[in-house]
């Protein structure tokens, strides 16, 4: 299919000029720079078929690609106080929130659904990087807690897809408090004897990594995802050293014992179904 991306695209460009090419028809692979045709990219679940790079996935789309078709229901998440600090930098936080809501159609950086994966019931929470960098404020924290409570209620495993630049700075220490709050959520799932599985996607950094993400019974990452606590630039400035090749990427973390596996996007639903099946059999038998 590469004739389409390699030959047609430049031709369209010369015919129409750059501005007139609809933005949403073509996407450039951030890794190999090839132009990818939208419909084809979607068919490959936003994985570049030239180089295998896993492009970011909007959160609602992730639900669609994870849960069994027609099996799931989105859950409405609890409302939280908007802009408790009345935060303003170069822009008002309330304006940032409004713009993010208009752009994404989401309330905040988390969506939650319950349904089945390969026939196994599951509660799935997905962080939305497209919403203010997937940053974790009260809404995300409250959503993780709500997802954990729902999992306990339904006696279903909790699966969280992470994607986050870190804390929602505009919520100050309230965003910091989401670290213990989400850890408490994991403890509820753990005490109910239910599996907690995290799927780390690009990027997963900061306070999100250093709280619920790293407490998974099983921790899976997509290939090539940036995963860490401190930002690469901060580290470079602190240690004044060149960062090693592949530093803070999924494969690096796997090699350092921090992940269970690195799994291609196409294989995620089957892998999740298998893991859930293996971890919940004893639970079902005991019940």
């Amino acid at each position: 299919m590469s004739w389409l991306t390699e030959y047609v695209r430049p031709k369209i460009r010369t015919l129409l000029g750059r501005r007139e090419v609809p933005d949403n028809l073509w996407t450039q692979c951030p890794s190999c720079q090839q132009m990818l045709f939208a419909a084809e990219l979607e068919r490959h679940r936003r994985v570049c078929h030239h180089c295998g790079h896993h492009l970011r996935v909007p959160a609602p789309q992730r639900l669609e690609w994870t849960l069994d078709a027609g099996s799931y229901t989105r859950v409405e998440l609890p409302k939280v106080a908007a802009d408790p600090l009345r935060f303003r930098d170069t822009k008002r936080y309330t304006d940032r929130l409004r713009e993010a809501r208009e752009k994404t159609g989401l309330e905040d950086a988390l969506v939650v659904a319950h349904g089945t994966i390969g026939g196994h019931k599951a509660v799935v929470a997905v962080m939305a990087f497209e919403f203010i960098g997937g940053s974790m404020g009260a809404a995300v924290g409250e959503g993780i807690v709500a997802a954990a409570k729902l999992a306990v209620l339904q006696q279903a495993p909790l699966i969280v897809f992470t994607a986050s630049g870190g804390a929602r700075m505009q919520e100050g220490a309230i965003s910091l408090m989401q670290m213990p709050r989400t850890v408490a959520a994991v403890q509820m799932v753990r005490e109910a004897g239910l599996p907690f599985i995290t799927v780390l996607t690009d990027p997963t950094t900061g306070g999100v990594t250093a709280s619920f993400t790293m407490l998974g019974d099983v921790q899976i990452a997509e290939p090539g995802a940036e995963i860490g606590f401190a930002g690469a630039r901060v580290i470079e400035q602190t240690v004044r050293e060149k960062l090693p090749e592949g530093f803070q990427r999924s494969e690096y973390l796997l090699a350092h014992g921090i992940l269970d596996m690195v799994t291609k996007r196409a294989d995620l639903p089957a892998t999740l179904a298998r893991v859930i099946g293996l971890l919940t059999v004893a639970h079902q038998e005991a019940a």
Partner: protein
Amino acid sequence: MRHFLDFEKPIAELEAKIEELRQMSEPQGPEGGINIADEVGRLSAKVERELRGTYARLTPWQKTQVARHPDRPKATDYVAGLITEFTPLAGDRAFADDAAIVGGIGRFRGRAVAVLGTEKGSDTESRVAHNFGMSRPEGYRKARRLMELAGRFNLPVLSFVDTSGAFPGIDAEARGQAEAIARSIDACLAAPVPLVATIVGEGGSGGAIALAAGDAVLMLEHSIYSVISPEGCAAILWKDQAQAAAAAEALKLTAEDLRRLRLIDRIIAEPLGGAHRDPQAAVAAVGDAIALALAPLAELDGTALRARRRDKFLAIGHDTLI
């Protein structure tokens, strides 16, 4: 030699004058001495007025500087002043002992306790030895180990937090900094014993909450507690590190702000002019506040404590913010 902050300049000048007068009073006759004593008294009263005025209306950015003051008592000063029979315990049992987090067992006012503290160091040598209070994963793993030990032997845990944050380094990331912090928070919330955390200087982000998800969280009056440093926030949101003062303001990182947001339980008043002016008084005030916080917790059993602690954190943002 006392270290003065920029906004303390008028105070520094007055105190220099007092010092000058004191030097003069020695060789002079009795009459001169009396006049000098009067003048010293007058200037001292002025210093006190000046301190009272300045410290009553510190801006968040000024508080940030007070919280980071080089002479401010550090975690080990609180341990030395409040804990008898202190027995340091070292190591994460896997890789190393991280001196950025000190820990051990000892007695607090007669009661056996476990102690944790992020230690910045107080001179060049100790700052380097403690890595400026920035822990690697081994520090958080040691903290977790000691919290678990405390749980097994029914020792309340006292933590003293003073850190700009977890160490951002290649080695720290390679050995699972995020995982170590997550497990430490997990251990805080799971501890079947009382956990009283005191922010004594800087409560910097994940590196602070790793030791501070407690039943009671106390803050010294001029300490700060924040998700990111004002400089870091300014660099990201304002794209200009020089906007740190504006960021400090916006982040609501003072003890008063955190109390108002109900994210901490109690503010501990500092001696006039900040803890660095009278470290002994600051240590004593912290001791009294810990004793007060610990008393009602000591009556609860492990199950009740854990449930109460979890509910407390889960309730953040519910009844209080909307």
